[in-house]
């Protein structure tokens, strides 16, 4: 896809395996519903892709309220993966998603490896899904609720199992709540993943000093929004230098400048999350601003920005005395 901007033809598209994305802006899982909610306000066809809300095998009611709280420059959520379940997704949402002219990525969540596989196998039988994104930031019921995503072997095992069941692009969405995210990226690369998404939310917490209770019913929740952008950029940078498979950058992106920062740090594409709540058309605006940046800088192929960071100093992440 070529976009006319400032008199220049700018190549905005990219490929992931067999899938062509018209631009590098996707909307992040859990921040755009199933793609049909915003239709009246947003022309979804102008997005590079839609990542669905995490789908589980059975419908999930989600956590009790309150589920969200605003923090400085961000928000905490503990939605509890409320979703209609993969079966209703297939019957109620997929028909619409087949009609849109943008890539559709089904995000999968589960509490056992078997459940991940089961959800994927149901979706494998359906047309209209371009790729899978696997949410590993889920409690593993077999391991006393320990998060899959904080265990490198578990994350690799999920990847391996799913890889054996699909030829569609498989993207593993990593959690930032680990010491070295690049270890996880390498593990899933070895297990056959086609790409990694970096990052899911940071664990955070807020208290109400009047009631002395946690604001969220689950005590802690996931932090997202502009506040986390610097952390996400560092994680993308760490990951992109560690693996050969593409990295999709996520975390606090609200405008085209933010998105370009992620590309420079090594992201092939980016996802817009929390910003959709502030402005349902945020994804489209980000895409337009990225094009405007390229026009201004005389960049013909946006892909040339990926990893094009000029790290003048030789100092590495770990040398820096903070």
């Amino acid at each position, binding site marked *: 896809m070529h976009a006319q901007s400032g008199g220049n033809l700018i190549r905005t598209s990219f490929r992931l395996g067999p899938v062509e994305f018209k631009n590098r802006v996707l909307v992040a899982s859990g921040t755009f*519903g199933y793609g049909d909610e915003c239709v009246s306000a947003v022309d979804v066809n102008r997005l590079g892709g839609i990542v669905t809300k995490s789908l589980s095998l059975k419908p999930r009611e989600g956590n009790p309220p309150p589920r969200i709280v*605003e923090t400085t420059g961000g928000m905490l959520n503990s939605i509890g993966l409320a979703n209609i379940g993969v079966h209703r997704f297939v019957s109620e949402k997929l028909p619409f998603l087949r009609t849109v002219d943008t890539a559709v990525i089904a995000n999968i969540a589960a509490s056992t490896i078997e459940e991940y596989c089961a959800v994927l196998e149901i979706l494998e039988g359906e047309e209209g899904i371009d790729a899978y994104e696997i949410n590993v930031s889920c409690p593993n019921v077999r391991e006393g609720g320990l998060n899959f995503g904080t265990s490198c072997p578990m994350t690799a095992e999920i990847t391996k199992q799913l890889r054996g069941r699909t030829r569609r692009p498989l993207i593993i969405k990593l959690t930032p709540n680990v010491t070295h995210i690049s270890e996880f990226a390498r593990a899933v690369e070895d297990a056959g993943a086609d790409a990694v998404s970096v990052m899911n939310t940071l664990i955070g917490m807020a208290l109400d000093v009047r009631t002395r209770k946690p604001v969220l019913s689950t005590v802690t929740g996931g932090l997202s929004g502009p506040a986390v952008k610097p952390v996400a950029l560092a994680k993308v940078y760490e990951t992109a230098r560690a693996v050969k498979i593409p990295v999709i950058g996520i975390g606090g992106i609200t405008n085209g400048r933010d998105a370009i920062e992620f590309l420079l740090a090594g992201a092939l594409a980016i996802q817009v999350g929390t910003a959709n709540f*502030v402005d349902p058309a945020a994804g489209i605006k980000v895409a337009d601003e990225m094009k405007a940046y390229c026009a201004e800088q005389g960049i013909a192929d946006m892909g040339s920005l990926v990893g094009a960071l000029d790290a003048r100093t030789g100092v590495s992440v770990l040398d820096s005395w903070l």
Partner: protein
Amino acid sequence: MLQTSCPVLSLTAVAENVFLLVLDAPEIAPLVRPGQFLNVRIDETSDPLLRRPFSVYRTEGNRLELLFNVVGRGTHALAEKRKGDRLDVLGPLGVPFTLDDPGFTTAVLVAGGLGVAPMPITTRELLLKGKAVRTFLGARNKGSLVTTHLVQVEIATDDGSEGLRGTVVDLLERAFASGVPARPKIFACGPHPMLKAVAAFAVRFDIPCEVSMEGPMGCGIGICQGCPVELTNPAKKYALMCKDGPTFDARTIRW
């Protein structure tokens, strides 16, 4: 649902800590149904980050009116707006009150505090539909009352500085004790404990009752799943306040 940038026509203090904001919103104003709300971006910065939801108070042609209380940093910043400043507004949002219902002839509006906000637009529509309207307002004190554009108003204040000393539910009890209106239906808006009491009252008198709920919202448009309201329905535990509400049949809510 539309997203437009609306110039501020005026901002006036109408009661203690209560402001009336009038926007020029030719696209949105004509579409608003009573009980619907707007999700307003306070400014372009990230502090506050999220939009803030407000009921529509009144519309008149292209004019869109909101009534708000200053409670935190968002509403504080909103109260600093001046004529000509522009606000990015999403709306109209949510499910309006069901005013067409042929089953009632008298609408009983019950509002606590800023719960009065959706009542003027609701009143106008009810009167147009030929319904009788009675209005019961509860407030902290006389200074915080906003009674304009309402009809048949009865008042309760916490400190007794105007009307009955007590809650709006006490007021309702008293009024109904001296005669239940003909084929009534309650429309209530206010803090959760008040709505809960009104819902119980409605059950006791077996009166249909719709409530407009409040609570934290992430997006206001059904995409974040951040605003669950617990239902009595065993098959569906939660509804979304922003999309399935903010108005609900009081009997469907688990209070």
